[in-house]
C-alpha cells in the first residue's frame, strides 16, 4: 500500500527544541536510568542541576541513538563511546577544514 499521494508534515526537531528528561526518554523509548548513565559518562550534557530539571537539545537524540548502536554492536563501554563520539566530531571538523584548504589550492 502506498501513501505517495499524501505529503506528510512531520514535527521539526531543530536546535530551538529542548526536551525534559521524560520527553527525551519517550523519544528514544529508553529508561531514565539509561539517560542518567549517558550523562554520567559524559555522552550527553544536559542543562539544569538535577535529573528532574535537566533539559536536552533535540540535537542530542541522534547522539544518544548512536551510543546505543555502538554499545550493542561494538561492545564498547560508555566512557569509550563518549571518546569515540568526540573524536568523530573532531574528525568531522578537521575534514571540513581540510576540504576548505584543498579548494583553495586546487588547480
Amino acid at each position, binding site marked *: 500500500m502506498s501513501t505517495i499521494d499524501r505529503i506528510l508534515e*512531520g514535527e521539526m526537531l531543530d536546535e530551538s527544541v529542548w526536551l525534559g528528561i521524560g520527553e527525551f526518554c519517550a523519544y528514544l*523509548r529508553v529508561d531514565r536510568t539509561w539517560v542518567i548513565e549517558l550523562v554520567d559518562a559524559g555522552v550527553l550534557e544536559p542543562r539544569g542541576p538535577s535529573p528532574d530539571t535537566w533539559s536536552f537539545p533535540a540535537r542530542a537524540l541522534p547522539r544518544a541513538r548512536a551510543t546505543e548502536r555502538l554499545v550493542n554492536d561494538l561492545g564498547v563501554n560508555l566512557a569509550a563511546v563518549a571518546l569515540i563520539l568526540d573524536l568523530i566530531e573532531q574528525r568531522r571538523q578537521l575534514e571540513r577544514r581540510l576540504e576548505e584548504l584543498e579548494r583553495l589550492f586546487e588547480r
Partner: protein
Amino acid sequence: MRYKDYYEVMGVPRTASQDDIKRAYRKLARKYHPDVSKEKDAEEKFKELQEAHEVLKDPEKRAAYDQLGADWRQGQDFRPPPDWGKGFEFSRGRGGEAPGEFSDFFSELFGGRSPFAEARGAGRASRGFAAAGQDHVARVEIDLEDAFRGGTRTIELRSPEMTPDGHVIVKPRTLRVSIPAGVSEGQQIRLAGQGSPGIGGGPPGDLLLELSFRPHPRFKAEGRDVTLTLPVAPWEAALGETVAVPTLGGSVDMKLPVGARAGQKLRLRGRGLPGNPSGDQFVLLKIVLPPDSPQARQLFEQMKREVPFNPRADLGS
C-alpha cells in the same frame, strides 16, 4: 535468491573457532560501523556483517548453515533444500534479531518463516500479546537547495512488518515528506505513527528522519552557515574590487577589502540557510593568476621592476 557466503563476508575460514568469529566480527564492525566508518557502502557492508555474524555466532544456526555444504559461492542462485532445518533442535526465542533488515537468503533460512523462528512468532500471536510498533530511524540526504527553499522529498524505505500470524516480512514503502525551508544538517523530522505497526492492537511506532546534505559542488554547510570558495584575480584582491558572488538565493555583489589575502574569510550576513536567525554565507578567497599571455607577462615584468617586494623576507633570504 542469492547464496550468501557468511564465511567470506567475515573473512574467516570455515574451520574458524567461535572465538575467531567473535574477533573477526569486532574487527570488521569497527571498520564498517556506520556511526564510525568512512568506508564507501559502510552501511550495506555492516548489515551484511551483522547478518553473517547472526548466523555464525550461534552454534545451532552455524551447524545448519554448514550443512548446506561448502560448494556454494557468494551470489550463486540458491534454493533451500526441502528438508531444511530438519534434525535440529531449536532453542525458543532464537529467531533473527532483526530479520527484516537482512537478506532474503537469511529470512528464508533463519527468519520469520523458518523453523528457527517458529516458536517465537507463534507464541507471541497466540497469547494475545500487544506492543507498540518499533520506531524507525532513516537517514535522508537532501540537496542544499531543498534546505534553502523547502520542498517535498520522496523517500523509499524498506520496513520490516510483523504479520498477524507473527511472521516478519519486508515491505517497500514510499513516503512524500514536506521539507520546510531552513532545515540544517543533523536536524530531525519526526513522523508520528509512520514506524512499524503495533502488535496485537498496540500503537504504531514513529519514523524519525535524520537529515544530511548531499555534497554540493559549490557550497559547504555547517549549521545554517554556508561557505563558498571564491576565485578572484590578483588585481581584484589588491584593489578591493566589487565582485559577483553566488549565494543560495542568487548572485550578490560583494566589495573586497583593499589588499585582500588568499584564505581570507569574508561574511555575507544572513545569506546562509533561512531561519531565526538566518545563517551567514562565508566567502573564502582564493587568488588565481591569469593564464599565461604576452600581455600578462609584460605587466608582471613591469611589476617585478617597479614594485619593491620580497615575499620571502621572513625566511631571511
